[in-house]
């Protein structure tokens, strides 16, 4: 058993909260620049260069890229040979979020009750997902998720008869209906299969994949490319003012499902597609 102290977890989460909000991943920055160069509408290219300028300012001044510093979505992979010591792992994560969001001048966007509201004042609790994996490492991924794009996400329990076309149309329509609301260009995370909840989880985890990678299954890799092309033919463009660059990427994750079903979840992320990871 390898021991890992909860203190380490708190420190890592606090640091990632701050860094994720100020430093956009290189892969996302590169994709935005690439899209600006390929953009065939000058007004749209102009918006993309403002977005690039924003990325520079956030990095240089160490300020958040976006005022919506999100709900902290934390994905933890715990090696089965790891023993977490010194307290509760959940409290350690929330303490890290509290510290990062308070000391890092990040916005506190969490309310303690969905209907009765009331800000918790420290951006806790985080949304935490645990997975047990082989090995003696502990991997933490932190993705602050803004709700302008989260609110544009959809899930649908299709009948299998809807087939490939039903799934593809649903994904494209979801982006079209969202329009300017989720701050396009967007990143589209898709989960197909599993159960109701599994589909949504896969859609969110799809957003964590690097910009450049493709689904390992050529059938879905092809679908990702085709959907990106269809979405970028909608004409919505950056900020919805018209243009080619409506989405930066489409990422699909799948899982076996029941003979009676075909769940499809679409989780939309904005161009401020943030996440950091650490391996302890």
């Amino acid at each position, binding site marked *: 058993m390898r021991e890992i102290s909860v203190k380490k977890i708190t420190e890592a989460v606090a640091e990632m909260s701050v860094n994720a909000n100020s430093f956009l991943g290189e892969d996302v920055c590169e994709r935005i620049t690439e899209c600006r160069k390929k953009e*065939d*509408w000058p*007004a*749209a290219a102009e*918006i993309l260069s*403002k*977005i690039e*300028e*924003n990325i520079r*300012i*956030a990095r240089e*001044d160490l*300020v*958040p*890229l*976006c*005022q*919506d*510093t999100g709900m902290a979505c934390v994905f933890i992979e715990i090696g089965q040979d790891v023993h977490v010591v010194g307290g509760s792992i959940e409290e350690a994560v929330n303490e890290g979020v509290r510290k990062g969001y308070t000391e890092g*001048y*990040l*916005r*506190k*966007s969490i309310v303690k009750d969905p209907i009765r*509201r009331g*800000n918790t*004042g420290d951006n806790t609790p985080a949304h935490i997902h645990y997975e047990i994996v082989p090995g003696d490492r502990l991997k933490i991924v932190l993705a602050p998720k803004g709700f*302008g794009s989260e*609110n544009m996400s959809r899930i649908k329990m299709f009948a299998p008869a809807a087939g490939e076309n039903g799934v593809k149309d649903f994904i494209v329509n979801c982006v079209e209906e969202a*329009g*300017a*609301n*989720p*701050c396009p260009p967007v990143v589209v995370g898709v989960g197909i299969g599993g159960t109701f909840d599994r589909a949504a989880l896969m859609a969110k985890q799809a957003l964590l994949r690097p910009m450049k990678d493709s689904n390992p299954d050529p059938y879905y890799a092809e679908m990702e490319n085709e959907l990106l092309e269809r979405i970028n033919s909608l*004409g*919505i*463009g950056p*900020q*919805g*003012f*018209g*243009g080619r660059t409506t989405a930066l990427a489409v990422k699909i994750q799948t899982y076996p499902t029941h003979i009676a079903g075909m769940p499809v979840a679409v989780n939309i992320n*904005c*161009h*401020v597609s943030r996440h950091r990871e650490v391996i302890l």
Partner: protein
Amino acid sequence: MEKMLVYPYDKEKLKELKAGDSVLISGTVYTARDAAHKRIVEMIENGEKPPFEIEGSIIYYVGPTPAKPGKAIGSAGPTTSYRMDSYAPLLLDLGQAAMIGKGQRSEEVKAAAVRNGAVYLAAIGGAAALIAKSVRSAEVIAFEDLGAEAVRKLEVENFPAVVVIDAYGNDYYESGRLQYKNGNK
């Protein structure tokens, strides 16, 4: 070229703005988003005085991050506007000059803008660090308990925005996309 929109924002000036125009705003702007709108509208309905003069005002839908020491404001980009759709017509009927946010508005909001000669402007969603550079000062004037959602009085200089709905009811989200599609046939 950008058009200048300088305080006071009288309706005559707003008539010159057309959907798709880039504008630079200078002067006083008030911030209010979901929870503040709810309270302001409740105050008005109860016959109380709202925290600022609605007539002639620009309301920016934003909940900024906390300011770092020595800075006027933290990052401050627009939030999605449709959540304010149920409150906006009343405020527009009271003479609000402009709304700043991002994303589509309802037909009711559009009609209220046309009826009152008001405009809806969009700032670049997610460009919050860049936008914050145009904010000279910020002061919480109401609902401090709401934290990021409190009402702030901002003084802005050359705040960049785009006219989405003009006083004639044109909508740049529709026309911009159409222009792009026609231009790329």
